[in-house]
């Protein structure tokens, strides 16, 4: 699903240039449930932005679903994001003056789906996440967990090939966090590739593969079987 090789990215910081990703190689298969970890400055946000086609990269290659993602103009990038990627953010990023249903329907608006049809589909997705009665509510009238579920419904509605979640539980208490992780697990079980960026070990431990970044390269990859070991090691640290 995702093939990244020798990825370089640096940012201009005034007269200096900050080299963030230094020849990163990464492969994620279809249907994987991956978390990307790393301390701040390790490049995980940069990697997520590149994966989400929100940012360009300097060198290397990035294939998403067999398609080379490189030097796309803004319109093309927006289209590709809309079709292939579902975003989930830490702070939900719902549009405040739109109700839950309209928020969920927004990606379909950019696919030029008719209003009636996309609202109907949005209701279906809200129903699936147990929020049908809240469809007419504004984000300000929803709890954090509900907001994140609306955001997840929004990420799913365009039937993307991968779900990118940036600290999806960062703004939630632990009970709600687990709830959200269960939903993501379900989505993954239905065959969707899910990638989350997190710095919380227990959240990462719920995924099937952990990729630890350090100084712009992958430090280690912990697969499903090793997770138990990883957990123990975390506890001792």
């Amino acid at each position, binding site marked *: 699903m995702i093939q990244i090789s020798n990825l370089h990215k640096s940012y201009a910081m005034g007269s200096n240039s900050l080299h963030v990703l230094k020849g990163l190689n990464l492969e994620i298969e279809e249907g994987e449930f991956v978390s990307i970890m790393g301390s701040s400055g390790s490049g995980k946000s940069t990697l997520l*932005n590149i994966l*989400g086609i*929100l*940012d360009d990269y300097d060198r290397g290659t990035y294939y998403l679903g067999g398609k080379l993602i490189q030097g796309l103009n*803004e*319109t093309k990038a*927006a*289209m590709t*994001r*809309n*079709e292939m990627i579902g*975003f989930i*953010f*830490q*702070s939900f*990023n*719902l*549009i*405040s*003056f*739109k109700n839950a249903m309209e928020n969920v329907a*927004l*990606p379909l*608006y*950019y*696919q030029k789906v008719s*209003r009636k049809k996309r609202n109907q589909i949005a209701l279906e997705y809200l129903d699936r996440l147990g929020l049908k009665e809240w469809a007419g509510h504004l984000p300000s009238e929803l709890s954090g967990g509900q907001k994140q579920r609306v955001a997840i419904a*929004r990420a799913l509605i*365009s039937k993307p090939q991968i779900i990118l979640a940036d*600290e999806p539980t*960062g703004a939630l208490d632990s009970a709600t966090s687990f709830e959200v992780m269960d939903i993501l697990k379900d989505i993954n079980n239905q065959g969707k590739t899910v990638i989350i960026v997190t710095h919380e070990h227990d959240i990462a431990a719920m995924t099937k593969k952990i990729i630890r970044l350090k100084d712009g390269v992958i430090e280690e990859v912990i697969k499903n079987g090793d997770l138990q070991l990883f957990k123990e090691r975390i506890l001792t640290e």
Partner: protein
Amino acid sequence: MFDVDVWQEIFSTIKKNKLRTFLTGFSVAWGIFMLMILLGSGNGLQNGVKEQFAENSVNIMWMWTGDTSIPYQGLKEGRTIKFNNADYNFLKEKDEDLELVSSRYYLPGNIMYTYKNEYGSFETSSCHPALKEMEKVKLTSGRFINDLDLNESRKVIVLAENVRKALFKEEDAIGKYVKLNTVPFKVIGVSFDAKRRDGRTSYIPVSTAQRIFNGADRVHTFAITTKMVNTAEEADSITAKVRQGMAQRHKFDPKDKRAMGSFNMLAEYIRTMKIFQAIKIFVWIIGIGTLIAGIVGVSNIMLILVKERTREIGIRKALGASPASVITLVLLESILITTIAGYIGLLVGVGIMEGINYGLEQMLAAGGGERIFFRNPTVDFTTAITSMVILVVSGALAGYLPARKAANVKPIEALRDEN
């Protein structure tokens, strides 16, 4: 562009910021309102002055004579110059710049008008038939002097309405005879001039006047219409040419204003209209200036709006909004605010001017306000349409910068969590 969703998006943001939208719109509405008031007033003033000119043909010219003040070709100054019937023929036949000619012989002293037991002393003008068109003489009944009256020196008279009233009261005057001193004249028409209520002028044929009042072929003044020209210079050169011709016939210096006086209305008319053209340009400059202030306001507000909505725009872009769709959103909102607000300003401005116009018409109909130099102070359809086009274009201009800023919003920066 006529996507229902786009409009719903726009209306939802406008609804969220009612006061701000109102204030922004108000500055634009005010701009266009002032433009309409200024243009309307300018038009009113211009129409008022035009009306004054319209009492006569705009291309009329009057000539009269006096004593020479400059020695000419060995002739001393102080000679009295007199027009005569030959001058009439000369002006009529020889000068291709002239259209209509009418000569006037001043009747000596006050003429006593008598009808039955009623009598009074009134002003009498003698003329050619052409004067009706030149001085826009209006008739309430009967006819004006014609060529036959003139050629046969008929004793006919066109009475001024107030003279008729004084002599005939409620009686119909047409066909009756009025005595001018001792000579009976047949009334052929009644003239009326709303502007000159006290101008008690009646008209008789110039030939009759000369014959009855011992005028021989003496002519005191000429009224002529020149051909229509577009510049004051051309009009002035016609005046000069006519003066040259008369100077040659009567041997005086063409520059001698005392020997022969003349007034060319067309030159004055063109000059006055030029002033109004300048005023109009001035008004447009001020109006557009006011409008620009309003538009800058809109642009400013839209910039703030874009800044406030950076995150929202970031979300939209992450979810697949193309730069074009973001630009459309901002641009349409800007155009919507300016157009609607501007239209309201336009309506109010035009409405007020129409109201003033209505009041003026009422006043004139009631017989007052003839001294007011203000007529039909309204803005025409073309100007209104032009203003609307300017509004839409300026709305687009006002929105362009903020829209471009919005389109350049980077989703990663907009969505970066500040923690």
